[in-house]
């Protein structure tokens, strides 16, 4: 999976790998200890056990060390979450409407599509609405997901650096064709996007106003 498809991809992957790394070490340590004790203290080798009721310093050690590690993990997760909910100023708003079993994206001038076209390097804010049951908009490459719930507006945001297309899935079970509720997010370079936006506006006879500022298109 791409690491730089969104501002969150790399952060989520790194955080995940840190936690996986720590977890693997802990698991490995536990399993080595377990297997070693079983061999070393088998009834053959050690016919007479030693009863040890417990050890308070040891109990404290293996309470406090995990506590510290866990708080570190919590902090990483919280920081990432803050990134994901802090929508940059000037993000462009696109309204998403989900129904069983399709997505619809509505642009500021009323243009509607079933594929999400976005300009590269531009923060996009999605406002999520459902017409029927719960859905969840999930873009795996961007590492983000938000539930789409009737009678309630949820928002999410992203930007993406390259002209490419990625899958959008529905992640909340919504009935018969839940697994077919896929669409794409297609990122186009600025001029390409405006070109598409203009054509789509004409086709759907909506007034065309450029979404991006002019200097950005020239870039």
């Amino acid at each position, binding site marked *: 999976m791409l690491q730089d498809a969104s501002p969150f991809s790399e*952060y989520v992957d790194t955080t995940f790998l840190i936690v996986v790394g720590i977890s693997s070490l802990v698991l490995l340590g536990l399993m080595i200890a377990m297997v070693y004790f079983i061999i070393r203290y088998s009834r053959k080798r050690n016919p007479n056990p030693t009863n040890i009721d417990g050890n308070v310093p040891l109990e404290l050690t293996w309470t406090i060390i995990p506590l510290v590690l866990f708080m570190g993990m919590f902090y990483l997760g919280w920081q990432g979450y803050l990134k994901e909910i802090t929508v940059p100023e000037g993000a462009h708003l696109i309204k998403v409407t989900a129904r069983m079993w399709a997505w619809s994206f509505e642009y500021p001038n009323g243009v509607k599509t079933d594929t999400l076209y976005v300009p590269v390097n531009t923060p996009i804010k999605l406002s999520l609405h459902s017409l029927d049951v719960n859905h969840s908009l999930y873009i795996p*490459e961007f590492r983000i997901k938000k539930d789409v719930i009737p009678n*309630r507006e949820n928002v999410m945001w992203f930007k993406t650096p390259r002209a490419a297309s990625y899958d959008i899935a529905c992640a909340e079970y919504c009935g018969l064709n839940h697994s077919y509720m896929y669409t794409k997010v297609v990122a186009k370079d600025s001029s390409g996007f405006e070109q598409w936006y203009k054509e789509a506006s004409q086709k759907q006879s909506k007034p065309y106003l450029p979404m991006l500022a002019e200097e950005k298109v020239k870039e």
Partner: protein
Amino acid sequence: MTSNVPAIEPDYLHAQTNRKGIGAWIFSTDHKRIGILYMVSMLVFFMTAVVLGVLMRLEMLTPGKTIMQPQTYNTFFTLHGIMMIFLFIIPGLPAVFGNFLLPLMIGAKDVFFPRLNLLSWWLFITGGLLALVSLFLPGGPADTGWTFYVPYSIRTTTNVIPALFAAFILGFSSILTGLNFITTIHRMRAPGMTWFKMPLFTWALYSTAWIQILATPVIGITLLLVVVERLFGVGIFDPNLGGDPVLYQHLFWIYSHPAVYIMILPGLGVVSEILPVFARRTIFGYKVIAYSSLAIAFIGSLVWAHHMFTVGMSNTGMFIFSLLTFLVSIPSAIKVFNWIATLYKGSIKIEVPFLFVLSFIFQFSIGGLTGLMLGVLAVNIHVQDTYFVVGHFHYVMFGGTGFGLMAAMHFWFPKMFGKMFKKTPAIIGWLLMTIGFNTLYFPMFILGYLGMPRRYYDYLPQYQSYHIVSTVGSWILFIGILVIFINLLISLKKGMKASANPWGGKTLEWTVASPPPVENFHEIPVVEKGPYDYSEYEIKPELIK
């Protein structure tokens, strides 16, 4: 302690009662017979749900249709979930082994309310049958997932109402069992058995029982509200009527998260019970393990919304529920550390129940550690509702509780039926189950992280290789389960006669005959020592040789 093995008293399996045939069982108030009733009915449901699971895995072998239609697949994962959760794991250890063992372990002749106990089983069976009936009613079986999320569960035309009623009735069965156990533990411990001389399985049952009593009513009410909404169109959860679907999720998880601990705590208790017997030494950190059960029960009641991190909660909610999720994993981690420390300087003999316990510790650790990953907010948002979550909870529920149940079955089988099982097939079964289990569920972590959502009938081709591995795992696991059960069934008939204490256990159930007499104890024992007192095996030079 006086010997409790009177020679001629009839055991509970063969005792004469005033009823004949099956009536002597289904109307019996003997806690041991009720335990066996639960075991038989639960295993029937379990095997049904296992078959559904295997078929689902088969469907996942290839993208698109492999063997069934999407609607069938959707009802299969719903039924698999409902049966596994409400008919197998929740009643599994507490109702089967709790019923059978609790009075024996604390030196009592029965539970405090024997008739209420029988009623609990009848409620369980009624709920289970209702769930089965709903399969064949017009409209077809429910297709909502075991979570019954609103608004889908209000809109679907399938038989949601019978399924909800079934879950509602099963809830009452669970509440009454919890009530019974708490009362029994408070009032009926043998003289000398102080709280800290109780076996740790009893402690686990005690913590579980509190959750059963306190949390189950919430799901009862919630499911009833859905029924009311469906039947009378009252707007509680339905957004079209001004209700709030997120409220439903909160109420659902306020029960269903603690329910996860109803499912796992008794499994943790089984491990704490079995380890010292085969390590032939006292458990390390008895009090810590006992208190950690209570801590899990308490903190576990406050983490429900970590199932809902993508629902659009307030930042305060996200912060608190993530933090508490990390806190609740600490007592579980402590248990694992204490178990491994229990092996230190033991005198370990590897027997079948011990092997299952080792698999339990390995798999439960993976389940717990992946739980940490899910607690990390930024990661959770990516893997929420993907196969990662499916992998995680199967590692805890099946790799943990399921293997704990297998350990318990083999450990107490001689006590329950007075027969020994055959060792070699059991070891083969254990090996197949462990290999199959990990082959089945480990690829799900990778699938989930790569973005494969759960409850998907069809999937994108890039996921297929992992699905194939997983499906092959399901076959190995299934064969392992068959080997285990066939071996136990054969042993029931042909097994060698078991002695009162084949493993050398120190808890009270091993002081009575196998199978135990109807009244359990001829004479109520007086307890002087802790439950895992193996000091007699410590170095006494004159005894070696």
